[in-house]
């Protein structure tokens, strides 16, 4: 048994955990921004999926991973734009539109994939890796944590940057106000609609980049429905993180590790049905809610459209 848990294997596990966790970090952070601003973004799954598709197409045709991320982000943002128009600007119901957009993105990407790639199944090269000199030499941790695409370091850095902005910039205040008491924000001279539209677009961009990472770095290809609920896990992360980006980071890491553990247990020959392992994250969330329920506070105006001067 021991022989299996060699250095390279442990490295690969941890590496896999990071690769699985990064897309979740993207969507978790994105969802958090929307929710802070009072928009419950159920459409994030669709944004992620569309970003995955767009990002893959871009990376495949140009050969540039960087461009893949940008276009993936823009793809997610396009779906987010619809959400912003319908839910923020026109005040339609966020849940229903979110579900609708997710269904639409699923259908559209599967359709496009069918006509475009279903005969060729194109795959990308390995994504370029940036080794951080020095620390990437540490056994196990080095190659697992510091042999990633630049985007991984960027998003981790962005996590802290976002946390810092929440506290120290007017953006943070505006988001908080838009989610907590939009009328007060409006009265203070900041457009609630603009704030929320900005938040939703940012969410779409992050989710789209997460999707692009999943497709281009995680899988190296696009297959229909490939996000497979990752967007919804992002919603969970945002809920558990209670407005703190660092908690999203931690949660994404835990989710990634739990996925990687599934493999580890199997490779180790432990005979647990995969469904049981699959249940663990969700069971964990429910347990956390039941135990710490009273502490999970959501923005007061979450899910409510804001119309100036309406009675």
């Amino acid at each position, binding site marked *: 048994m021991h022989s299996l848990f060699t250095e390279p294997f442990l490295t690969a596990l941890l590496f896999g955990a990071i690769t699985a966790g990064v897309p979740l970090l993207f969507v978790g952070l994105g969802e958090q921004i929307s929710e802070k601003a009072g928009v419950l973004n159920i459409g994030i799954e669709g944004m992620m999926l569309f970003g995955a598709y767009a990002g893959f197409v871009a990376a495949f045709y140009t050969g540039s991973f960087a461009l893949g991320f940008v276009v993936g982000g823009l793809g997610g943002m396009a779906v987010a734009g619809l959400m912003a128009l319908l839910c923020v600007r026109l005040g339609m119901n966020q849940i229903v539109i979110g579900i609708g957009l997710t269904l*639409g993105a699923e259908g559209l990407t599967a359709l496009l994939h069918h006509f475009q790639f279903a005969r060729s199944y194109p795959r990308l090269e390995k994504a370029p890796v940036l080794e951080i000199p020095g620390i990437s030499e540490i056994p196990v941790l080095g190659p697992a944590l510091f042999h990633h695409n630049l985007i991984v370091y960027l998003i981790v850095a962005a996590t802290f940057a976002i946390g810092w902005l929440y506290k120290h910039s007017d953006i943070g205040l505006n988001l908080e106000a838009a989610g907590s008491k939009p009328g007060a924000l409006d009265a203070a001279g900041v457009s609630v609609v603009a704030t929320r539209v900005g938040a939703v677009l940012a969410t779409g961009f992050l989710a789209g980049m997460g999707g692009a990472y999943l497709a281009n770095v995680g899988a190296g290809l696009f297959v229909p429905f490939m996000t497979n609920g990752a967007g919804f896990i992002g*919603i969970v992360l945002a809920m558990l993180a209670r407005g703190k980006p660092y908690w999203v980071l931690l949660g994404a890491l835990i989710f990634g590790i739990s996925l990687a553990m599934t493999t580890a247990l199997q490779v180790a020959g432990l005979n647990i049905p995969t469904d049981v392992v699959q249940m663990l994250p969700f069971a964990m969330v429910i347990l956390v809610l039941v135990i710490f329920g009273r502490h999970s506070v959501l923005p007061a105006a979450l899910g409510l459209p804001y119309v100036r001067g309406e009675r």
Partner: protein
Amino acid sequence: MSAAPEAARSQGLPPTLMAGRGRAVAAAIARFLLPILLALVVGAVILLLLGTDPLAYYTYVIRRGLFSWLGIQATVTRMAPLLMIAAGLIVAFRAGIWNLGADGQFLLAAVITAALGPALIGSLPDWLTIVICFVVAGLVGAVWSLVPAFLKVRYGINEIISTLMMSFLGISFANVLIKLVFFDPGTTVPQTHTLPVEDRLPRLFGSTIHSGILIALAAVLIVHFVMTRTSFGLKLCVVGANPRAAIHAGLNVGFLTYATFAISAGLVGLGGAVDILGVWGSVRADWNPSFGLLVVPLVFLARFHGLATIAFVMFFAVLQVGGESAAVRLGVPTFYTLVLVALLLIFLALVEYLDYRRQVRTRS
């Protein structure tokens, strides 16, 4: 926390069905037809881009889904579980509870039904087996909604997220049950025992439509009646629209919230039973039709109205059944139906918004 559903009620515009019955009804119908038309048009553009003749596609879908005997039977059969789920969602949404956990509730109830039915059918009369299956399926659905209900009543936790979580949990749990507990050792793929075709819900008038559709239609109509015409329904609506007002009015908010969850999830569970007893006879591991999230937009498009819901579910079933057939004959994958539903939602939103603007302008 119930804020979200409350918003759903108010932002869909003022209930125009209230005044000027005749003209308002005509306007309401126009409000439904216009988005459908627009969605079909944009859908047609997408079809054109993909190299398919949209007119041929639409006529084919409607012919296969609606105007052929086989098609209409398939459509009506498909409607049965969708309508049961819709009934459950109407209760919840009218009562201001966003039950997004229908998939888990449906699947667990289906698995239990498929485990129970074949086991009982030998020793009990058919009708009793079916009744027991229904009762247990309803209970299973209800039980699965207890945790979100508890979290909502006790801590005020947003049920949108908790029901979603329970849904994912339920889907995996249903698989575990099939693989570890209720599997039929005689089959190579993990699945439950099978209820023989002749022991399933009786079929109607020699067609392939099973009688579950009657139960489903009745469920939607009863739910509509209860929610709009009874004191119980009104109490649920009050709790949903303003829980503090409900407390102030002396309503037992905790109990009514539990009741909403239980009735909603119970009806969804019955949907699982209807589908298993009417069509499938067994459940195979990893089967998940994901009806729950599909029905949400339909119920919403229908503005939670029972009759409109039946119409929209039928519309969707025609699209699905005809679309599956068209997938084989015309090479347009069934995913296209999803795109159409999304387009429909978007245009409904836009049309409603424009209509609202028009009303505001004309009234002032």
